[in-house]
């Protein structure tokens, strides 16, 4: 990241000269985010233009050929860091207050812990674990501590006791009909789900919030144009666009995320607008204008933070929607065939349900609990952040 420090210096000096005191309207956090964003763009261009496609981007400490989707994911994680983690750390007292409120819901705390585990394993796991490959000689191994009729696996890796093949710790959750380890598939699926849920939601939330607040604050013609466009977009069948592109180019997770992320923000924009309309009438907005703040500044620093509570709540309930949607498309073989998503594994195992129940069941359980956890967390967040809706 030697280029990163260079950009910091140039960026800051240019900004000071050109806009003088206006720089103060960019907070330290915004500047940090901007620098990190520029660094990512630079790294992406380096990878995309200079490195041959087949060469892995990083070889130390692990070999990792960063894909388009990975770049998006890294950007998303940075955005979460700068606009969720850093503010939480900066306002420790408020964070402590929210945590006290959040803690009242025990299921939500449990859900949060579970999701953090899924998130961490999902982010790190696939980098460390070898991608599961076809190994027909290891097909249909039962999960550890369980057994199955020895006729089911082609070649039982464990002991055969009383005509039943015992599972081994080599494959704790068993293997699929292709001989792929289900635990590894589940870990890969975690990353897929996190990518789908987080990237799409970030796209939706960013665009929706921007459009909603600008429409509410701009009022008049701006409002009219933006919201009529939202109306049109809400009736646009993004699903068919996705089907068409899948038909033409083959399914890809990147396409799924981009299409549904870029077309799914209509309802968030409406939600944000209705909330922002109310906030825009508050006296502190007039007070900020009377202090000499410009339109964009008022929107960014006064309007957006005041609608963020309902946005965050809505976002936590959007994430499971995207994950479930991706799983259903994969189940219908409309997903990305190269990506081992949970939906795809469930679909692969469904013909073997009578003999090898574990193939579909384990990814299914993870899908179920993940979505449940997001919903629990969303409810608790709403109670903590937005107490008005409680009654």
């Amino acid at each position, binding site marked *: 990241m030697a280029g990163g420090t260079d950009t910091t210096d140039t960026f800051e000096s240019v900004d000071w000269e050109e806009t003088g*005191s206006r720089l103060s309207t960019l907070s330290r956090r915004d500047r940090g985010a901007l620098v990190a964003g520029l660094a990512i763009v630079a790294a992406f261009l380096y990878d995309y233009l200079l490195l041959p496609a087949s060469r892995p981007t990083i070889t130390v400490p692990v070999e990792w050929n960063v894909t388009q989707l990975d770049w998006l994911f890294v950007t998303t994680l940075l955005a979460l860091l700068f606009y969720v983690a850093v503010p939480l750390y900066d306002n420790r007292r408020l964070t402590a207050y929210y945590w006290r409120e959040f803690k009242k819901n025990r299921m939500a705390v449990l859900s949060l812990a579970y999701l953090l585990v899924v998130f961490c394993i999902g982010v790190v796991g696939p980098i460390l674990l070898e991608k599961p490959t076809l190994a027909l000689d290891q097909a249909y191994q039962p999960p550890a501590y369980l057994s199955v009729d020895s006729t089911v696996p082609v070649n039982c890796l464990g002991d055969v006791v009383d005509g039943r093949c015992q599972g081994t710790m080599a494959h704790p959750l068993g293997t699929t009909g292709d001989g792929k380890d289900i635990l590894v598939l589940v870990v890969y699926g975690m990353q897929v789900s996190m990518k789908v849920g987080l990237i799409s939601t970030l796209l939706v939330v960013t665009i929706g919030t921007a459009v909603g607040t600008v429409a509410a604050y701009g009022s*008049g013609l701006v409002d009219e144009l933006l919201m009529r466009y939202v109306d049109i977009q809400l009736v646009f069948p993004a699903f068919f666009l996705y089907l068409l592109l899948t038909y033409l180019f083959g399914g890809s997770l990147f396409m799924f995320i981009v299409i549904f992320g870029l077309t799914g923000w209509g309802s968030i924009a409406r939600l944000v607008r209705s909330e922002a309309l109310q906030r825009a009438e508050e006296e502190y907005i*007039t007070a900020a204008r009377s202090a000499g703040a410009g339109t964009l500044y008022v929107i960014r620093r006064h309007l957006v*933070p005041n609608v963020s509570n309902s946005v965050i709540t809505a976002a936590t309930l959007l994430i499971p929607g995207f994950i479930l949607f991706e799983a259903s498309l994969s189940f219908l073989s409309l997903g990305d065939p190269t990506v081992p998503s949970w939906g795809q594994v469930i679909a692969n195992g469904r013909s073997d349900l009578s003999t090898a129940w574990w193939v579909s069941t384990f990814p299914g359980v993870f899908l179920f609990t993940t979505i449940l956890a997001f919903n629990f967390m969303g409810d608790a967040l709403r109670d903590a952040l937005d107490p008005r809706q409680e009654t």
Partner: protein
Amino acid sequence: MTEPLLTIRDLRTVFHTDEGLVRAVDGVSFDVGRGETVCLVGESGSGKTVTGESITRLIRTPPGDIAGGEIVFDGRDLTTLSDDELRELRGDRIAHVFQNPQGALNPVYTVGWQIVEAIQLHQDVTRATARERGIDLLDRVGIPEATRRFDDYPHEFSGGMKQRVSLAMALATNPDLLIADEPTTALDVTIQNQILRLLSELQAEFDMSILLITHDLGVVAEVADRVVVMYAGKVMERGGVFDVFERPSHPYTRALLDCLPGRGTGGARSIGGKLPPPTDPPDGCRFHPRCEHAVDACRAGEQPPAYPVDGDDDHVVSCVHYEPGGDPSVVRGEEAAPTDGGRPVGGDTEEDDR
């Protein structure tokens, strides 16, 4: 007399609404001298706030629109400035304090953050300097333990304390003109007094002019140098505070003063009737439907021009009884016949229209 800091001439602010054109401010003129406190009084809906917000064009356009007039601030006509130029003035040379201290502070930021923001929007200073300055200001407006409270959120302050914080924010850049829109209305009487005293102290210390918008004549008597009485978007009477209180000349001013408890003989009186509909104001004097001294001349044509009272150009009144050759004693009944008490009685009803 030196040139006033702010001169408003024939200001007209209208709102385009579904019900029609609302002339919220209709030909208002007055001056604010340097270091002076001018009070804008009138009942709710008379256009005081819109006048205050028109000065730096804080009204939302659309639906609002400054349809005419001049606002000359320190030699520059604000109505001709671009939005960017105005923004430079706002908060820097002209600051606002608002009525509702609960609403004027953004709940998601600490008060310190908001004061620093007010400073940094106009001055190129480091965060540390701005912070020091902010703590100083908080201390100056009477927040105890300013250093500790600097990082508190607005909900951790009482109403009076919040208003002090708003004041600190307004003073952050040492403005020449402070427009205070009913700064004490939402506060109880003891706090109200403290804030008013603070305002006077700060005015002397910062050497600024104050345009105080209020409906409370008690407040006016306490702090004003000069008074502008507004009714339904028009200026009814304008003059030095002693002139207006000693010799209230417009029937509306007199009626307003009669609303004060303990003045005159009996208790408080209300003004009968109510404000005319803003989309369809009456012809002639805006106040004539509620005025007991109304004559035919009041009911037709335009609002009467500003006539000097007793030949004093600094105390003017918009009432036909004061035109040259007219007979002001019709209005000032008590001077002609003091036994009568001369209190103007409202219209037919005694209903309180607040």
